């Protein structure tokens, strides 16, 4: 009787959990804002006379990194809080952060490579920042693979929390490496580029006009929206798994 009550209660929870109104609004706002940033980048910002149209990819490339930074930052917070509170909510938040951050980091890496082809005349070079960005992507890909490889849920959550915290070193390294290693050819978009930088351009008011809104959308709105949706999925998945276990145990 108790098992049946529990089962019904979980089913009720799953069935009557519509998308919150705030998330609906946030999703619509994010989609509209993203379209707006694309319009600014493609039609409002001027063409860079030295680099041509490919420079416009920076309005996605750089904000995508900061979106990944935010998402991976959420993973760090989730990891720390899980280790402290031992509440599964934080672990679900952490994994949501990794999945969203990894997608953004892949966009950052691929758009950088596409920009480099006409500007550096190569798809890839083992520049310090490019290398650290690639290591960052591999580190977080390994997070997702490792997560599926650990059976014991409690052990998995603990281990992945620690992993998620330490993996953030790769994000910070990618962010700061061009300030530390002078041999880089990677330009700095905001601030002075290293002397060796190739394909650099000055962040004029026109650039900021397109880059500013894009940064806000990628840094705040997009990670928040995607992580929230992904978090809800994780919640849903956990509830159904619990239900399956209950059914099997009866």
């Amino acid at each position, binding site marked *: 009787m108790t098992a049946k009550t529990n089962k019904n209660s979980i*089913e009720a929870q799953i069935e009557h959990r519509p998308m919150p109104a705030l998330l609906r609004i946030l999703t619509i706002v994010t989609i509209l804002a993203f379209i707006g940033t694309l319009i600014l980048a493609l039609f409002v910002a001027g063409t860079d006379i030295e680099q*041509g149209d*490919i420079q416009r990819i920076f309005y996605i490339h750089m904000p995508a990194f*900061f979106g990944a930074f935010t998402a991976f*930052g959420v993973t760090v917070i989730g990891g720390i809080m899980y280790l402290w509170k031992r509440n599964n909510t934080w672990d679900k938040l952490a994994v949501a952060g990794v999945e969203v951050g990894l997608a953004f980091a892949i*966009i950052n890496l*691929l*758009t950088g490579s596409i920009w480099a082809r006409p500007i550096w005349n190569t798809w890839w070079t083992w520049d310090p920042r490019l290398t650290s960005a690639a290591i960052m992507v591999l580190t977080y890909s390994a997070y997702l693979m490792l997560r599926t490889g650990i059976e014991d849920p409690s052990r998995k959550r603990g281990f992945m929390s620690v992993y998620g915290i330490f993996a953030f070193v790769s994000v910070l390294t990618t962010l700061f490496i061009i300030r530390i290693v002078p041999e880089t050819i990677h330009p700095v978009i905001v*601030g002075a580029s290293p002397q060796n930088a190739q394909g650099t351009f000055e962040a004029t008011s026109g650039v900021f006009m397109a880059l500013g809104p894009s940064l806000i959308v990628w840094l705040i709105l997009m990670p928040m929206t995607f992580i929230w949706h992904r978090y809800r999925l994780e919640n849903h998945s956990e509830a159904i798994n619990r239900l399956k276990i209950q059914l099997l145990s009866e």
Partner: protein
Amino acid sequence: MKTTRFLFPLLWAILSIFGVNAQDVAEEDLPVVPYFQSKMFNAPVLDGWENQSTENIAQFYLADAQATIRTAVVNNGDSAVGAKQDLETFLGTTLDEPIYSEKVNLADGTWVVLVYQVDENTTASAMARQNDGRSYVVSFIESNPDVSVYMATIAHTDDSDENNPILEIGTAIETFTSASIDDLSDPEIVILPTGEWTQQTNGDNVTGLGWIFGNDSYLAVADGTIDNLPELANAYNTTLLGFFITPDNGHYLILGLVISLGTLIILALSIILRARGLQKDLAVIQQLTQDDD
């Protein structure tokens, strides 16, 4: 969960501030070089010269020297033919064979160097390069009756002095004038905005100026009385070296956009499809539960 609600906005605010500050926001007041910009090319605007540019032609005139520096595009894939066509359009006359014709490899491609003696008073020097079936022509035309001025770029040879273009100055003087290079003065250094130029003269009012940049010597030769040859040489070579074509790489941008949007769509779809999969699981569980009941 209440804690989570409060923590979310706080964490985002902290991460956002930290993330943006890490880029060291520091705008510098850099000098802005004025540029003529057309859809086809970009060329520096010459300070102190009268700007006679039109929508697709950058053209600057210096009345004192009766000299014009002009950058234009000709729809002809042969840069030598294109340069000749552009000069003929500007001069309104048909040109004979050039008195000098050569090719040089510069950082942005192969350029053809042409020098014409148009008539007794007028000379025309041009450099042209081909890109996407068009010829981009940078030319110097002067019609001062007191002097003839010639501009050319000559590649270094094995015999050249790496630090001094005296060999090339001699070659240019012999090519464009009847003066003997045996009578040339000792080289003098002339400091111009483009760099350190070497100047040599002879008693017949012939002046040669040369500047080494990369693997080439940039030269100006005046046959006659002139006091502003350095200014003319500097202006022409500023145009020549400051000229560039905005690359046409929109297809790479499209590729980048497709990949970015594709990745975001895959992420969104994966969440939607997994949610639908869970709904199906739930329906099966409900069915089993009902069967049990």
